[in-house]
C-alpha cells in the first residue's frame, strides 16, 4: 500500500467537495441566486480584486476591526485591573457588569449608529463594545490567579503592592489575557460587520448587503470567503504573539522533575 501524506488527503477531500458541489449545481440546475457553483464564486473573487472594489472595502473593515480591538482591549485591561485590585470597585460596578454581560452586544448597533453616525467611529465603537467583555473577565481572573506561595514570597521580600502587581500578578495573568485577546479579535470583527449591516458607507458588510439587493449570491460567497480568511489571519497574528509572550507557559508545573538532569 502507498502511504499518502495526511495533508494531501485533506486537500483531496476539499477538492472533491468542491467538485461535487459544482457538478450538483449544474446537474440539478440550481438557480445561481440560491447556490452558485464554486467556479462562479472564484470568478467573482477575481473580478472583485481586479477592480480594487474588494480591496477598498476590505481596508475599511480591517481598520474598524483593529481599532475596535485596540480600544476595546485598553478599556478591558484598565477596567479589569481596577476590578481585580479593588473589591470596592467590583462591588459598585457589579450591577452594571451583570446587566451588560447578559445583553447581546450586537443589539446595541442601531443605537451606536445613532450616537456615532455612519462613519468609521460607530463601527469602531461597536467592535470595541463587542470585544471588550470577555477580555475584561479574563483580566480579572488572571490577575487574581497568582499563586499564593508566590505572593507570600514577594511579601517576605518586603515587596510593595505595586511590585507584586507588576512583577507577579501581571505575568501570571498573561495566559488569561492572551486567551482574552484571541476572543476579542474574533468578536471585534463580528462587531464591525454587524455595525456595517446596520448602517455604513463602506466595508465588507456593506458589500454583502448591496449584493443581497442585486441577488449577487456568488459575490456574497466570495466576500464570506474573504472574511473567513481575514479572521484566520487575525487569529494567526495573535497566536504568534501569544507564543512569544508565553514561551514559559508550556510547562506550567514548576515542581515536577524535568528535562535537564544534573548530577543530582
Amino acid at each position, binding site marked *: 500500500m502507498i502511504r499518502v501524506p495526511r495533508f494531501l488527503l485533506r486537500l483531496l477531500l476539499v477538492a472533491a467537495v468542491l467538485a461535487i458541489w459544482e457538478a450538483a449545481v449544474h446537474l440539478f440546475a440550481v438557480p445561481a441566486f440560491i447556490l452558485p457553483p464554486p467556479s462562479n464564486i472564484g470568478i467573482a473573487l477575481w473580478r472583485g480584486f481586479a477592480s480594487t472594489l474588494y480591496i477598498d472595502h476590505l481596508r475599511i473593515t480591517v481598520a474598524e476591526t483593529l481599532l475596535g480591538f485596540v480600544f476595546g482591549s485598553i478599556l478591558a485591561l484598565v477596567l479589569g485591573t481596577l476590578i481585580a485590585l479593588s473589591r470596592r470597585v467590583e462591588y459598585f460596578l457589579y450591577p452594571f457588569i451583570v446587566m451588560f454581560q447578559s445583553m447581546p452586544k450586537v443589539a446595541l448597533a442601531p443605537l451606536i449608529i445613532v450616537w456615532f453616525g455612519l462613519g468609521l467611529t460607530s463601527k469602531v465603537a461597536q467592535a470595541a463594545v463587542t470585544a471588550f467583555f470577555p477580555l475584561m473577565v479574563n483580566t480579572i481572573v488572571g490577575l487574581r490567579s497568582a*499563586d499564593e*506561595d*508566590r505572593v*507570600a*514570597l*514577594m*511579601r*517576605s*521580600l*518586603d*515587596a510593595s503592592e505595586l*511590585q507584586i502587581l507588576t*512583577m*507577579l500578578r501581571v*505575568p501570571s495573568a*498573561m495566559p488569561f489575557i492572551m486567551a482574552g485577546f484571541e476572543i476579542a479579535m474574533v468578536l471585534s470583527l463580528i462587531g464591525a460587520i454587524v455595525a456595517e449591516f446596520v448602517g455604513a458607507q463602506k466595508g465588507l458588510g456593506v458589500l454583502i448587503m448591496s449584493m443581497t439587493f442585486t441577488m449577487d449570491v456568488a459575490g456574497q460567497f466570495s466576500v464570506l470567503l474573504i472574511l473567513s480568511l481575514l479572521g484566520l489571519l487575525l487569529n494567526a497574528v495573535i497566536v504568534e504573539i501569544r507564543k512569544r509572550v508565553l514561551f*514559559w*507557559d*508550556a*510547562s*506550567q*508545573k*514548576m*515542581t*515536577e*522533575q*524535568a*528535562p*535537564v*538532569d*544534573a*548530577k*543530582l
Partner: protein
Amino acid sequence: MRRAEGALAASADLIAVNRLSKTYRTRSGAVTALENIDFAIAEGEFVAIVGPSGCGKSTLLKILAGLTPASQGAARLSGTPIVGPRRDIGVVFQSPVLFPWRTVLSNALLPVDVQRLGRPQLNAAAMDLLALVGLKGFERRYPWELSGGMQQRVAMVRALIHNPAILLMDEPFGALDAMTREQMNLELQRIWLERRKTALFITHSIAEAVFLADRVLVMTPRPGRIMDDVRVELARPRALEVMNTPVFGGYVQRIRARFQATGGLDS
C-alpha cells in the same frame, strides 16, 4: 526552661523569641497553634526545629518571616521586634516558588529587583552563589528545565543574594526524593560552612535535624511548645556516614523518646 537569664542573654542573640503564642480563630472556636514559645539563636548558629505535622512549626516560621503576626509575645531579630516583612531575612519555602518567566539568574536576583539593590552590583554575587550550589552554566536556563533539587538550590541562592542576617528554611527538601534529599543536606552543610549564615531549619525528620544542626529544638504536637533543646556535638563537616554512628543514634533516640512520651510521633 533553661533560659533563666533570658532577658540578658536575649540582647546578645540574633533571634530572640519570648513567650510567643499564636491563636487562630476558626468557626469551631479558637485554635492554639503555638503556646509560650521561648528560644534564642546566636549569631552564626544553625538551629533546627523538629516536630510532627501540624505542630505549628510552619506558623512559627511565618511569624519570624513577618508574614503573620503573633497573638502574644514577640520575636526579635537583631534586637528589633519582627512586625512585618523584613529585608534582612531570607526565606526558603517547601516548594521552590520560582517564577517560570524568569531565568535561573533572574530568579536568583528577584530580591535585588524588589529591594532595588542594583543588578550591576549583585550580578557577580549571584553568579558566585549559583556556582557555589553547583548551578554554573545554568544561569540562562528557565526553572522548568531544571530538576526539583536544582530548583530548590536556585531558591536557596535567592534567599541568600541580598545577604540577609538570617536564613529561614521551611522543610525545603520535604518535596524531594530520599536520595536527592540526602545530597541536598550535604550541599546545605557545605554552603553553610562556607558562608556561616545564621540559619533556622524546620523539618519533621529527626535525622535531618540532627545531621544539619548545631542545636535541635523539639516541638510538641498542637499546641506547639518547645519541649527540648538538644545541642548536637558532632564535628563538621559531617559525612552521611555519621548517621550510622552510635553518637548520632543517641541524639535521634533522645529526640524520638521525647515524642513518644507525648504520643505525638507521626511516622
